């Protein structure tokens, strides 16, 4: 009798743990990057060059990784919470969408400032029109470090 009770109790505990884990997974929000260390540290212009010279290999190297990108602020698009890093003489850039949940805003960022942005790389948008320049895109970005 006692043994049966232990078994049933054990099963209940396992189900409760599984349900709890499921509930946690189901509600898990996308992680902020402020306290996550970057997998790679790169220069904005070097990163673009790497993608331009070999898109497939560079995708393999960086996709699903966290990048810390250093570069000159080329443009600030406050409406989209986006900072563009790169060379002003080039249409290409590294477009960083700031993490809206982490209270990061484009704030007082000035064009021409040298900054570092950490973010999750989402890929390389190769320009097929020949007009716009190709961009590396990052999201969930935080400024600094």
């Amino acid at each position, binding site marked *: 009798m006692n043994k049966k009770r232990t078994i049933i109790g054990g099963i209940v505990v396992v189900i409760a743990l599984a349900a709890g884990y499921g509930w946690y997974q189901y509600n898990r929000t996308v992680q902020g990057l402020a306290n996550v260390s970057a997998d790679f540290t790169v220069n904005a212009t070097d990163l673009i060059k790497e993608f331009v010279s070999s898109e497939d290999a560079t995708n393999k190297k960086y996709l699903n990784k966290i990048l810390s990108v250093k570069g000159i602020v080329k443009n600030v698009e406050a409406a989209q919470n986006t900072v563009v890093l790169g060379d002003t003489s080039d249409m290409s850039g590294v477009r960083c969408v700031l993490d809206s949940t982490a209270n990061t805003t484009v704030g007082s960022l000035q064009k021409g400032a040298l900054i570092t942005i950490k973010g999750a790389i989402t890929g*390389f948008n190769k320009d097929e029109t020949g*007009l716009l320049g190709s961009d590396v895109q990052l999201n969930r970005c935080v400024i600094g470090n």
Partner: protein
Amino acid sequence: MSFLIKKGIISCCLILMAASLMAQDKFFTKSGNIQFSSKGAIETIEATHRSVTCVLDSKTGDIQFAVLMKGFEFKKALMQEHFNENYVESDKYPKAEFRGQIVNNSEVNYTKDGTYTVHIKGKLTLHGQTKDVEADGKITVKDGKLQAASKLKILMSDYDIDIPGTVAQNMSDTINISVSCTLEPLKQ
């Protein structure tokens, strides 16, 4: 002498005018917005993309969109992971593209402020599959910029996106897509 200078000034003006006319042919953005949602029995799946590229040629009505699939942001992490890994397979198919045309482009006066209803036809490539797509949209011309907006529906099954049986009941095959972009003149 003064005749030559006058002639020079006039030809300079003509060149500048021609250049400015040419420059206004094309409009673009790199920070367009796309949202999609799918209403299931239990919950609604929603995501937003804020780095959509769009180019519109006002002369021909040609319009193109490019979207990096990994750039869609979800509130729930698990949804974002499933979307990338199981549904759109963004490692294998990183980009979605639309190439099409504004069918009634002649009805849009790109130099006059106002709102114009447009009809767009084209091809959408997603998850390695290309399908014909049609949609209605609006173009609002204001201060030399264009505000473009459209809503359309696509079916996941059209793009070979399989939903496993266990979650199929919580997801609709229909995806509602809403596009909103502010296009600026492209300086060439």
